[in-house]
């Protein structure tokens, strides 16, 4: 009998040697005359266990990890193809607490299916949302998304249904769906995981968006740093077109939707939606003034839906199961689930999809297992390089857009970067300003010049030069950037700095008791 063995092709799994592990498994099976079918799946997101190998058994899938090439012969000795016991055994995959405790909606298939198998995809509810959408009027598709309470997962958390409605209402000969796959935030990788591990989910979500607003063409703008995502998307698009789920006359409906992947070129600012559009059009990535909204005059001047990968990737299940189903997860105005990304100095880094409302403490300790270094966790940067540094006193605030905003922090794209007590928040603040200076598009002065002044001022503070005066200067500089920048790069780069000053003044040489 042929045994199905899974070894992820996910970039992070390969970063730990998955390709060599896969090759070793094939070679070992051949040597022993054991029949196997190797599937290169996505990652389950239990990254500290990568490369994680799974074997299909009558009881379910059994996991082993981390499996390097040199472990492979021993695993076969222990009866790998029958799910035999070994020092690297993790038991039934679905029973691993890290996975079992999650609420995987957007990531329901990632790590389970072969990313290029239509059969696998449809067996796991794939294209159910599309089939439903094909039977609905455009306004009813939009209504389903509005009812779900889905808000943009790219950072700004704008209600997706409202955006779609604006584009639906716009009159034009051509409309576009653009997927923002620029995922530039440090501490994030959920877009990448989905594009590599379940690219058809994004394709389906974009096709549904096209049907909803009357767009017949879509672009996926994927960052250049993700070559494997680009490869997988292109391959999946080809397969979907051949199978009739994409392109001309989708499933015989008479509706068309074409999808093109565009590669970025290493500019963080191109994650900002109007800069992204400039880039697709072949220009420098200068941020555009708004209005006009991209929803009315977006790509090539036409009405355009721009959404993050996670937003669009959540659409298929919303359509398949209904807006109400999705809305039942979450708290307050943060509905549904968010795929949190646990990164940095953590023992168990990975992807945790949960309904909004859980706390950082649960993520850091119940899931993350505490710091990788074994030292106390001192600060967590939530929401990317423009997000605040959150101190332990705030670890119990529920992860909810509004609750975080109340304390000057943001949930953003759901990335957490964990630092132990060796971190120097003055240095991290300096880096935040440096990053802003490097990535500024240069259109407005507070961002372009302010960030460079910020670096200089923090350097003086670190060196102990006229500390009081320079801290006042830094605060006023942050204020100018916050209020005078055209987009959130300059407008939010002060958040990490201000939060560091507020919660960790001692790192700037300020007496904690004296600081207000």
């Amino acid at each position, binding site marked *: 009998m042929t045994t199905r063995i899974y070894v992820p092709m996910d970039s992070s799994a390969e970063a730990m040697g998955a390709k060599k592990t896969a090759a070793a498994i094939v070679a070992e099976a051949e040597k022993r005359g054991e029949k196997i079918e190797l599937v290169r799946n996505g990652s389950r997101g239990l990254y500290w266990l990568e490369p994680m190998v799974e074997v299909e058994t009558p009881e379910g899938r059994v996991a082993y990890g981390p499996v390097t090439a040199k472990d492979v012969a021993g695993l076969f000795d222990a009866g790998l193809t029958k799910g035999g016991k070994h020092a690297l055994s993790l038991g039934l995959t679905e029973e691993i607490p890290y996975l079992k405790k999650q609420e995987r909606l957007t990531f329901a298939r990632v790590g389970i299916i072969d990313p290029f198998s239509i059969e696998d995809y449809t067996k796991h509810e794939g294209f159910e949302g599309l089939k439903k959408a094909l039977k609905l009027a455009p306004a009813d598709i939009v209504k389903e998304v509005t009812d779900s309470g889905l808000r943009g997962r790219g950072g700004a958390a704008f209600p997706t249904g409202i955006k779609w409605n604006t584009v639906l209402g716009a009159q034009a000969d051509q409309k576009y769906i653009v997927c923002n796959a620029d995922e530039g935030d440090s501490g994030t990788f959920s877009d990448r995981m989905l594009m590599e591990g379940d690219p058809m989910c994004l394709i389906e979500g974009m096709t549904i968006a096209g049907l909803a607003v009357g767009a017949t063409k879509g672009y996926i703008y994927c960052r250049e740093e993700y070559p494997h995502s680009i490869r997988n998307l292109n391959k999946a698009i080809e397969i979907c077109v051949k199978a009739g789920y994409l392109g001309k006359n989708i499933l015989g409906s008479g509706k068309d939707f074409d999808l093109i992947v565009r590669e970025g070129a290493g500019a963080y600012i191109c994650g900002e939606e109007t800069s992204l559009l400039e*880039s697709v059009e072949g220009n420098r990535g200068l941020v555009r003034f708004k209005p006009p909204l991209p929803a009315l005059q977006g790509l090539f001047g036409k009405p355009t839906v721009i959404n993050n990968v996670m937003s669009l990737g959540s659409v298929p299940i919303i359509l398949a199961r209904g807006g109400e189903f999705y809305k039942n997860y979450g708290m307050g105005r943060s509905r549904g689930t968010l795929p949190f990304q646990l990164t940095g100095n953590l023992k168990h880094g990975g992807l945790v999809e949960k309904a909004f409302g859980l706390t950082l403490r649960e993520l850091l300790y119940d899931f993350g297992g505490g710091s990788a270094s074994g030292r106390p966790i001192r600060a967590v940067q939530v929401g990317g390089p423009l997000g605040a540094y959150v101190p332990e006193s705030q670890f119990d605030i529920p992860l909810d857009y509004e609750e975080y905003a109340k304390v000057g922090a943001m949930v953003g794209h759901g990335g957490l970067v964990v630092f132990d007590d060796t971190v120097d928040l003055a240095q991290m603040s300096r880096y935040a300003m440096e990053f802003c200076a490097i990535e500024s598009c240069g259109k407005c002065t507070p961002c372009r010049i302010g960030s460079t002044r910020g670096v200089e001022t923090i350097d003086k503070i670190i060196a102990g030069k006229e500390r009081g005066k320079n801290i006042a200067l830094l605060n006023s500089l942050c204020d100018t950037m916050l209020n005078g920048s055209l987009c959130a790069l300059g407008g939010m780069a002060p958040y990490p700095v201000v939060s560091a000053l507020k919660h960790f003044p001692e790192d700037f040489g300020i007496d904690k008791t004296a600081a207000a």
Partner: protein
Amino acid sequence: MTTTPTLSDQQKKSLDDILARLKDEPGPLFPILHAIQDELGWVPEETVPAIAKALNRSRAEIHGVITFYHHFRTHPVGKHMVQVCRAEACQSMGSVALECHVKESLGIDYHGTTADGQISLEAVYCLGNCALSPSIRVNDDIVGRVSKERFDEVIAELRSAQ
């Protein structure tokens, strides 16, 4: 640095092919620049007039786009591209010390190429491997949990795989 190498006939033909193939795409400049860099390893200044002509845009505009984006290179690079992640998650796991080691062991700074022409070095800001930081990218592959020793191994492997 001041002398611009001339494109070989072969390279000129590649350029013409790329332009013919892509110039009628909507928003053709990015696909064209990527194709040129994939083919030649960089985007030589000499390609600018041909691109400008094919797209009916000014040379200054094309030049402006090329220089705006970190990824497009206006100088030739080594056989292998090594990028070190400088972003926060990697910093939390010691990337600052790793950066020092990388520069010292290769004997070059960012934007530099080793004397043997084997390895070029660039900084990068997040590779999406933040759960297994610190991270580097070697050509199109990521390496995770990069210690100094692991880095040396990777480089040795690159150099021996000629």
